[in-house]
């Protein structure tokens, strides 16, 4: 087996277009899914933190549990929905990046919701009285608390990104691993493993980890800078 680290460096240096296409698709799918999950999940998590309604405890537990939803199960559910024989069949979204984004959003959403709920709950217990005194009720406090907790919320977002960029079960089922169209880093690694090209598979894994590491380092740096500037 060729040294995978060297293989990884050679692949990057060569700028192989197929590799770049795969990396580009992986980032596009996961980052879009993170964005959608945040748009839906941040207000939802905050509402869950501050809301008082019957069954709230059940909802909290369900979202916590869904953080452990197996990616392959999420993929299967989306597949059954988007299949031509399924309810959303006419949309023709199966085996497209959009289907992959949908499946990954479903995986990331519980993480964003649960961690946002936790952060906003803590912030409300710290700020609640003062905010009410200033005239901000629970509803109006949502954007205030989300913005105030932005550095902590970033951790939740990164956790969501990590989960999505690492998974293969969902994108494999709903994407179909079509060369040039729905092949991501993780599905490519699976493919090369199934071909017995273990060295290449590990090299791709090293590249994927490098990407994730870089992104997390950037986020950490941004968090430190923010902490220094804004307390």
């Amino acid at each position: 087996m060729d040294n995978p680290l060297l293989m990884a460096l050679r692949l990057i240096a060569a700028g192989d277009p197929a590799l770049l296409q795969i990396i580009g698709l992986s980032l596009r799918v996961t980052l879009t899914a993170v964005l959608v999950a945040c748009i839906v999940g941040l207000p939802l998590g905050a509402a869950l933190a501050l809301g008082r309604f019957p069954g709230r405890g059940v909802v909290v537990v369900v979202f916590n549990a869904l953080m452990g939803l197996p990616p392959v199960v999420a993929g299967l559910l989306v597949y059954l929905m988007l299949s031509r024989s399924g309810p959303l069949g006419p949309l023709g979204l199966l085996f497209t990046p959009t289907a992959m984004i949908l499946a990954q959003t479903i995986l990331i959403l519980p993480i964003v919701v649960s961690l946002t709920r936790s952060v906003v709950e803590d912030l409300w217990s710290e700020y609640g009285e003062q905010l009410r005194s200033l005239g901000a009720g629970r509803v109006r406090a949502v954007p205030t608390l989300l913005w105030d907790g932005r550095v902590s919320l970033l951790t939740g977002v990164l956790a969501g990104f990590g989960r999505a960029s690492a998974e293969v079960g969902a994108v494999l089922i709903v994407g179909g691993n079509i060369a040039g169209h729905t092949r991501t880093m993780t599905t490519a690694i699976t493919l090369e493993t199934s071909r017995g090209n273990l060295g290449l598979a590990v090299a791709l894994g090293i590249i994927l980890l490098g990407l994730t590491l870089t992104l997390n380092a950037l986020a950490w740096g941004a968090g430190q800078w923010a902490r220094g500037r804004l307390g």
Partner: protein
Amino acid sequence: MKHSRRSLILGLAPGLSLLAALPAAAQTFITLASTTSTENSGLFGHILPIFQAETGIEVRVIAQGTGQALETGRRGDADVVFVHARAQEEKFVAEGWGVARLDVMYNDFVIVGPAEDPAGLKSATDAAEAMGKIAAAGAPFASRGDDSGTHTAEKNLWAAAGVEPAGAWYLSTGSGMGATLNTAAQLPAYALTDRGTWLGFQNRGPLGIVFEGDAVLFNPYGIILVNPAKHPAVKVAEGQAFIDWIVSDAGQAAIASFTVGGEQLFFPSAN
């Protein structure tokens, strides 16, 4: 200040989502459900560009196990199904999911195993006897166990040998050809594999071909157009164009010209 930052993020979001949802540039394509072993052999990488150059139609391959590929066809998520499990293919057509089944090509299966051959397959005269020797010796055997064409062929061989495979030596991996071979290489164990996957497989470890050549090991492929009566969204014209091409002289020649390490893997058999 904080408002404009938030507006920027909120404004970008729908735009980015749309970007993700844009269909690929208006390229005509069909979806072909086939098997992982065919994809892994590299055949598609060789013949599909030829077809696309001639007709401008892109063929997008979804590579799955045979059972899953047929299910994909049944659900209407593919336009054409191209697998190697004759009985299941004919049932597919008989049940009305496919229009018709055509012969395309065949490849063959080989039995691989540890080089020192503890079950003594090298002395067997036919495939059924070889499988019988494995069972008799209780030598580890890695089966795909996934209702694929390969698995179906394996079951037929056990039946021909009069053996019901069960026991600690018989391992059902429930996975694709490559994963099963990885397992076999590790243990080591015997396995039934198509020659194409074997030739392309890098991680052989102590494994080598211990039995080949019996005619029952020949593995015929059939191609089927998914029935538009059941799934109106099927791309009939383009799908039929691919089927017509692959059974034509041009397509058959393309198949024959595909080699791995100088060896031809697939043998044209269209009528």
